[in-house]
């Protein structure tokens, strides 16, 4: 059981789905490679769960194709899809022991009793819960429940594994631990997996590739770093991490490029592009200098938040507010509100999005 090594990828082709007259998914196209850990990321209500559930066969009948391996799932009832799904609420059946929960799918598949015991124990030891087999779900902690839910699904050897926000009910610290375990398990099983989350850190740290959804439309597909570093639109830029988005025009003169902000300011930018658009600038790629005179750009601290590892400043530069994150070291003083600072931009890290690309509101 430890080596499933999924041969099935997932293809979603031109999928449309509506609840009654409300369109929820529009023209979704995805190609997920066999064995890939793929994430759906997006704000609440963007249609992540709906898409996942459509793959598993729940919810309204969609238009378009869903292929797992070569099988077209369209029209099949959930119980004939062989698609494993772990629910956000785990949905462990409270009237069955852990063992019974895990055995359920095997019983439904009419696996011989002797084999069931074996497989259940293998699955439980895989998630480290062999000793808990006789407990009832209500006697388990959240993390343990989550693992039972996982064991219950993988024990049936599904073609692919779907996870709907499997970690959202857990504590912050448990969440980090569980996502590592999940990833390790997925790697071990080689099972094509889709992971739904609205937490970008979770997606970033686990997924091979991910799709960012908004309002039922796939905004961009790619690896976490690609999406973070090269967002294709403002929505993706703003949704993945904090971003300063400065609208203006890139003007080239004397071999150097400057961004003429709509508010009248100018920024020297290390970029080849020209034209109007928006500049995406990450807070950690700007630094503050107390010597405001020396820098080209300066402003006044208008708000600050101590985040622990960083201090986040909002700096008013003329009419624009810029977010700057400064790494924090012990006893390093925090700048007061009203303090005048210079800003140094690591302009290589700035990404320019020319106008005309689809630009969703962040």
């Amino acid at each position, binding site marked *: 059981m430890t080596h499933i090594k999924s041969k099935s990828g997932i293809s979603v082709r031109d999928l449309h789905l509506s609840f009654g007259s409300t369109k929820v998914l529009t023209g979704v196209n995805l190609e997920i490679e066999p064995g890939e850990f793929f994430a759906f990321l997006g704000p609440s209500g963007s249609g992540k769960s709906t898409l996942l559930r459509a793959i*598993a066969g729940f919810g309204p009948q969609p238009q378009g194709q869903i292929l797992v391996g070569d099988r077209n799932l369209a029209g099949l009832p959930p119980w004939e899809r062989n698609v494993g799904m772990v629910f956000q609420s785990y*949905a462990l059946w409270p009237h069955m022991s852990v063992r019974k929960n895990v055995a359920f799918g095997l019983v439904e598949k009419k696996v011989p009793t002797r084999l069931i015991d074996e497989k259940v124990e293998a699955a439980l030891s895989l998630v480290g819960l062999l000793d808990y087999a006789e407990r009832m779900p209500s006697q388990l902690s959240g993390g343990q429940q989550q693992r039972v839910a996982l064991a219950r699904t993988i024990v049936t050897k599904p073609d692919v594994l779907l996870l709907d926000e499997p970690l959202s009910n857990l504590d912050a610290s448990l969440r980090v631990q569980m996502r590592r375990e999940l990833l390790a398990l997925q790697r071990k099983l080689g099972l094509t997996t889709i992971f739904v989350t609205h937490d970008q850190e979770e997606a970033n740290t686990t997924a091979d590739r991910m799709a960012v959804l908004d309002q039922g439309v796939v905004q961009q597909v790619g690896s976490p770093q690609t999406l973070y570093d090269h967002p294709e639109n403002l929505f993706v830029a703003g949704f993945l991490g904090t971003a300063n988005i400065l609208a203006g025009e890139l003007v080239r003169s004397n071999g150097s490029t400057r961004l003429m902000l709509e508010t009248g300011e100018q920024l020297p930018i290390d970029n080849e592009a020209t034209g109007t658009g928006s500049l995406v600038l990450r807070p950690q790629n700007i630094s503050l200098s107390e010597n405001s005179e020396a820098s080209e750009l300066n402003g006044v601290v208008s708000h600050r938040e101590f985040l622990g590892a960083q201090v986040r400043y909002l700096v008013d530069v003329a009419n624009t507010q810029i977010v700057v994150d400064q790494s924090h070291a012990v006893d390093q003083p925090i700048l007061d509100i009203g303090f005048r600072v210079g800003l140094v931009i690591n302009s290589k890290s700035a990404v320019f999005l020319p106008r005309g690309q689809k630009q969703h509101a962040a």
Partner: protein
Amino acid sequence: MDTTTQDAGGKPGIKRSLTDRIFPSLSGTALAAIFIATLLFGFLILPVAKVIYVAFLDPNSGALTLQNFGDFFSSSLFRESFFNSFYVSAMSVVLASVFALPLAYITSRFEFSGAMLIQSLGFIPLIMPPFVGAIAMQLLFGRNGSINLLLAQYGINIPFMEGLNGVILVQSVHYFPFILINLSTSLRNIDRSMEESAQNLGAHGLRLFRRVVFPLAAPGYLAGASLVFIKVFDDLGTPLLLNVNNMLAPQAYLRISSIGISDPMGYVISFILVAFSVFSLWASFLLMRGKDYATTQKGGGGLSRRKLSTRENIGAYGIVIAILLLVLSPHIALGLLAFGTIWSYSPLPDGYTLENFNTMFGQSGQYIKNTLIYAGAAAFLDIVLATAIAYIVLRTKIVGRKWLDYMATAALAVPGVVLGIGYLRTFNDFEVPFVGKPLASWWVIIVVALMIRRLPYALRACTAALQQVSQSLEEAAENLGATRSRTIRKVVIPLMSGGILAGFVTSFATAAVELSATIMLVSSDSDAPLAYGIYLFMQTPSGRGAGAALGILAVVIVAAGTMLAQCIIDRERKARTGEH
């Protein structure tokens, strides 16, 4: 309570807690608990004890003895009766479940138009007026009833109504709404992800229902099933009307109400009925303990109503209509009886007429009025008591609070005759001030009897309702300065209103057709309720149609009330959730 604030020592806090420690029981809820306990003792325990203590007397010497119980268990007839009662109750639960399960499942888990109508219709069998129900069933399903007369040409005769079978059929039709109501609520509380995860793992159809859905709805099902079991076990009207004697309740009744003799066995049986009922109740509590799965989970999907395909839809409608036809058949027959002329040994009445209604309306004005007053007042008092008991049991730490629940619920098991005789015996010498009548012959005693007998229904509904009110809603009110009692009035009760209304409707509907205790207590025709009017009509051959007409009227009144209540609940729910 407030004498402490001006204490010379100036330490109000400490003084207060001191008084609290000395008089810990004087809080409002404790007073209410004492009041309710007294009430239940005075109007339930004491009167019943006064009747039933005969069970412990040696009939020959008048000394205390357990000999009568020895006689009970050594009598083969009684043992057989006990077994029959048990068998009939158990089988009624089974058959009632067969009726209730599909109705509840289809209407609460699928997108099914008319679900609310079906739920309301499913409630109507509870409103079965005395006498007419069994007669109507005989006319349809009896050995020579419509069905068997129609089948006779094929040489078939199905013994629907013979002996214990008849009792089981009539009882399960009559009481299945208890299961329907409780089970539907439970089913609606199952998070859809519970079902979906099972489907995802390959389960569907009946297996899905059997392995996942039903076990999760088990608490509601058990609550309903235990009510049905106890009611059937204790019910005597139906077996008597079907002339089945070999069951405990009719044996008790026959022995208590025979002219002239008071066989102690009747009281022994009554005692055993009460004890066994309390025992089964307790057993069902035990069974339910720890099974109250809170299945609406954080991050879950809530209730899902699945869409049915056209074929499934037709099938579902077929099942629903068949069941409704069956469970409403007594009422259909009742209607035929009321609108028919002569109906004798034929599949349908010979002709149709409104004459029965004429006769009935001419004579029944006061019955209707009285019924509305009695059942209304009893049901109102029931919900007041039930709300109070539910609150005390669930929200306070008063010692022995559970016993209020047990006591009130034990009323389920007390045969109406026993309660009636108990009231006459206990309250006849109690002259009501200003009225100049003994309490036992004052009409209010009828209200009290109805109130006590129907309290268990209201109590179950209110308890369930209170369980669903989050405690933080109460704490928020107290935090904003509302005292305990104002919190109850302004927050708890409004939030329980759906359950309270359901309790009211159940109590009202069943109280409106109660007869066994009332007939003992009616002391003047002008005080008589509707069920009593039906009884009078049904004493003469010419009164059968008119009695049925009065029965129909009772059903219509109560059903209209039920629908109204449903609408109110629904409107309130919509207002609350902002749907339109």
